[in-house]
């Protein structure tokens, strides 16, 4: 059964329609990737799932619960974690404080494994120890992505939303980070929905892929099928 | 109850327009020492008659009184006093049948800044078509509106806000302007006399005065008079907190640092309350002598724990215990009735507008009686000039330039368990009589301030 289900979701920003009849689903423990060009609607989809954008019609279900009208903080408490494309690190706070932030907010964790999550996260991202005292302002791009991801995990979510986690990373770092994403699933068994603009990168991590174009899902299927489909590849690349 | 009879007496007395020393005034404090009452009705009356106008009937519509004063901001208590006094007078007159049958309505309008005051006055005249105006607007606003009043040709009864500048420069020959209280030039003079009398050995004088025309004039003329009366006294420091200040500590510290023998303050209203409280804590009252020129405007706010005993307080021209109630029942009735109405003790503003309105009433009735025609504003004003009126504070003579002449009560503050507020110790209560107000060295050589000659006040002081 699906963990997250979007059904014919239409979203507008102002008077511009950014999502048209989007229907996707993510199952438990699955890594799903939204692939599309810049401005295709990936970030809008993720924002709609998080509640930062309100759909005009359609429904969003999470764990069989209709969350279409819930505000973001309720969704976060239900178990959706987000690492946005702009990282969203609190620059005034140290890395440590950034990581602790979700714990301060939500006093009681969803399941009782709350105390372990910290260890698990540190096991996945051992570099965090080194950064601990660093201020959010002085992090490099890769470090920022890592902290943002780790912070989202501290919510102990069942669904992790990663918006362009691989964008702008150096090739070596990129490969390593992609491995980490897989490791997250292995260690925590949670589902991950990520947005990516490069099919090759997406296929490194994803089980399934949705291709988004102009706010519409144009394709949904396995990684292999997409990689072979030259037309889709061209569509996503833009040439 | 004696209050009731007195009131009727009073209304009757005033209504009949008895010139001279009436029943109430006869016992009035210091009435015998009043200036000789000049007579000014006759010329006006004859003039009207000579002109041979068709007699004007009594208008049907009520008489409108416009009160211009502070109804917002830190000085609201002043506006409330003026408005309360005017309504008090109006109610009393209406109960007795009005002025020639015309009832009185009281309107009020906020003054605020000089421009707003000018606008308020203009609006009263042009839109509401008031018959007379009154109010305590403060020195700055007074200076601003006086030229307009003379142009708009509607009488205005100032309470206590007239300045030397107004009297000497802006409106030296007023017709429509009346000053129901002492001019500002009176007080500094009296303050100087008080200082010379009470502290003959003082040398160093300091001042904490509000930073506007009144405060400036009060300090300047007190020092001018002191230089003449006691040349050994000198001003060592003058500080100017803004009107409406909440923190006087810096000013008090600066004054204490100058080690004065006497401190003069013209702070009034809420300012005086704050000043008194902070000055107590800084030990100002213990370390030096304080003479307050207008502190009594804060009368109802001076709860017993604020004012320390022993501040010399000049009471402008009316203090609710003077004339003493046992000697002068009219005052007793006035204070008691006002307290019943407003749950407050009447400040001098209350008394001033009250007697101003009665002077107006008296003038209208008198001219009407003489000519059989309802008078125009100009006639009314000329009839008020050089007339007299019985007021709760005693007898009032009105000079040809619209000045109500009266003695100034003064005394040291203390707390009488009878009252919830600080009052004047009756043992120290004294009056400075009008002739001394304008004549500080009645000790020889006698110099009379030549009222009405247009001599400048500073020139007069210089001639002592």
């Amino acid at each position, binding site marked *: 059964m699906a963990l997250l289900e979007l059904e014919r979701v239409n979203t507008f920003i102002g008077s511009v329609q950014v999502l048209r009849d989007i229907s996707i689903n993510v199952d438990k423990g699955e890594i799903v990737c939204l692939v599309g060009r810049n401005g295709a609607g990936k970030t809008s989809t993720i924002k709609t799932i998080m509640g930062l954008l309100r759909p005009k019609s359609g429904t969003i279900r999470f764990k069989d619960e209709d969350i279409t009208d819930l505000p973001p903080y309720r969704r976060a408490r239900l178990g959706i974690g987000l690492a946005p494309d702009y990282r969203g690190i609190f*620059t005034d706070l140290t890395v440590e404080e950034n990581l602790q932030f979700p714990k301060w*907010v939500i006093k009681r964790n969803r399941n009782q494994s709350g105390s372990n999550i910290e260890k698990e996260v540190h096991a996945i991202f051992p570099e965090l120890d080194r950064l601990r005292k660093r201020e959010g302002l002085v992090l490099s791009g890769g470090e920022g992505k890592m902290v943002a991801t780790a912070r989202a995990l501290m919510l102990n979510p069942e669904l992790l939303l990663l918006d362009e986690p691989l964008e702008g990373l150096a090739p070596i770092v990129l490969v390593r980070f992609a491995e980490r994403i897989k490791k997250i699933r292995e260690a925590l068994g949670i589902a991950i929905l990520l947005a990516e603009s490069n099919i090759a990168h997406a296929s490194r991590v994803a089980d399934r892929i949705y291709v988004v174009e102009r706010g519409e899902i144009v394709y949904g299927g396995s990684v292999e099928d997409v990689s072979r489909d030259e037309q889709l590849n061209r569509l996503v690349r833009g040439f | 109850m004696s209050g009731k009879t007195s009131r009727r007496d009073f209304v009757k007395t005033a209504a009949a327009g008895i010139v001279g020393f009436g029943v109430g005034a006869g016992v009035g404090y210091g009435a015998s020492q009043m200036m000789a009452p000049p007579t000014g009705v006759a010329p006006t009356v004859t003039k009207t008659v000579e002109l041979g106008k068709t007699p004007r009937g009594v208008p049907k519509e009520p008489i409108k009184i416009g009160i211009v004063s502070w109804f917002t901001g830190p000085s609201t208590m002043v506006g409330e006093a003026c408005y309360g006094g005017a309504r008090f007078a109006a109610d009393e007159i209406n109960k007795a049948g009005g002025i020639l049958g015309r009832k009185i309505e009281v309107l009020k309008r906020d003054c605020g800044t000089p421009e707003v005051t000018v606008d308020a006055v203009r609006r009263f005249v042009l839109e509401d078509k008031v018959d007379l105006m009154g109010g305590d607007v403060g020195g700055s606003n007074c200076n601003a509106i006086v030229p307009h009043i003379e142009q708009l040709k509607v009488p205005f009864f100032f309470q206590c806000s007239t300045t030397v500048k107004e009297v000497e420069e802006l409106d030296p020959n007023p017709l429509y302007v009346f000053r129901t209280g002492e001019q500002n030039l009176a007080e500094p003079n009296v303050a100087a006399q008080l200082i010379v009398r009470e502290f003959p050995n003082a040398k160093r004088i300091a001042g904490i005065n509000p930073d506007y025309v009144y405060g400036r004039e009060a300090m300047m003329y007190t020092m001018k008079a002191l230089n003449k009366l006691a040349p050994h006294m000198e001003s060592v420091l003058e500080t100017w907190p803004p009107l409406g200040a909440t923190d006087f500590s810096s000013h008090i*510290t600066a004054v204490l640092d100058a080690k004065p023998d006497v401190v003069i303050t013209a702070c009034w209203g809420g300012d005086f309350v704050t000043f008194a409280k902070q000055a107590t804590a800084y030990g100002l009252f213990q370390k030096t002598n304080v003479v307050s020129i207008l502190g009594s405007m804060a009368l*109802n706010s001076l709860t017993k724990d604020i004012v320390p005993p022993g501040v010399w307080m000049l009471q402008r021209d009316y203090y609710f215990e003077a004339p003493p109630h046992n000697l002068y029942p009219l005052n007793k009735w006035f204070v008691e009735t006002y307290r019943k109405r407003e749950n407050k003790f009447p400040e001098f503003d209350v008394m001033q507008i009250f007697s101003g309105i009665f002077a107006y009433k008296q003038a209208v009735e008198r001219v009407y009686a003489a000519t059989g025609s309802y008078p125009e504003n100009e006639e009314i004003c000329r009839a008020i000039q050089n007339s007299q009126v019985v007021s709760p504070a005693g007898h009032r003579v009105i000079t040809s330039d619209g000045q109500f002449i009266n003695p100034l009560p003064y005394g040291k503050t203390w707390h009488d368990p009878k009252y919830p507020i600080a009052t004047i110790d009756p043992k120290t209560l004294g009056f400075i009589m009008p002739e001394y107000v304008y004549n500080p060295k009645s000790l020889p050589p006698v110099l009379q301030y030549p009222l009405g000659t247009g001599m400048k006040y500073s020139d007069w002081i210089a001639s002592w």
Partner: protein
Amino acid sequence: MDPETVVIIILNGMFYALSLFLITIGLNILYGFMKVLNIAHGGLYATGAFLTWALMNTAAKAGYPIYILWLCIPVGAFLVGLLALVIEPLLFKRLYRLREEYSLLATFGLMLVFDDSLRMIFGGSPLSANQLYNWMGTLTILGKSYPTYNFVIYAFAIAVALGLWIFFFKTKMGRILRGTAQDREMSACLGVNVSILYTETFFLAVFIAGLGGAIYLPATNAYSGMGFEPIVLSFAVMIIGGLGSLKGALVAASMIGLVRAFGIALMPELELAVVFLILIITLIVRPRGLFGKKFTREEK
């Protein structure tokens, strides 16, 4: 001027400075978190004084002991805070979305409403509650009398400053606030109920302003219009110190307080102008203020 007097002048300057400080903190919090420049803060300061007056006056009339009167100060401030819980959801929630000038105008309107409501309820005469001030008596410092109550104010303001510092930098709630101030969307995504947090923050800011009014009441008095003068000076303090800076507010408020106190002693004619000249010079030389953060491109 003897050195003793200089000490007293400095104390006087701080007396004035700390009232500005207590208002400015609230302004800073509201601007820092919600980007609302709240002119009505002066009105809330005044409300603090008036409500405390009502409590103290009732208590004194009923003959309650002095510690009850002390208690009136926090209770009065708390009541003002409760007021914040009403106006925040009703008015300010709608302002967060609007442009700055709209919120300026609306809070300006609210300031007028506050000022007049106080006059309607409490009348126009100044109200004083002197029991505590008199009870504390006078202290002799270097041979000069000085009101003991002022030290209560100093101690109190320092406690507030320290307390806030600890709150913002050492407590969970404070750090959540700082994070939310920077990125409200992100913190919502991390589970923060921003709407409630804003209400709580608003309560805190208003509570401090109310405390300012309450604690100054015994030393001065409450009168209608009392909120207008400090609010404009507090804007100056806020800008000179740097938007959102606690330290800056303290330093700038002290600066203005001292300039004013020495100005009265040395050059009374220019005291008021100097305060605003400092503001202008600060803005020209260092627009982000003494302790303000560097502007981001968007803020410029």
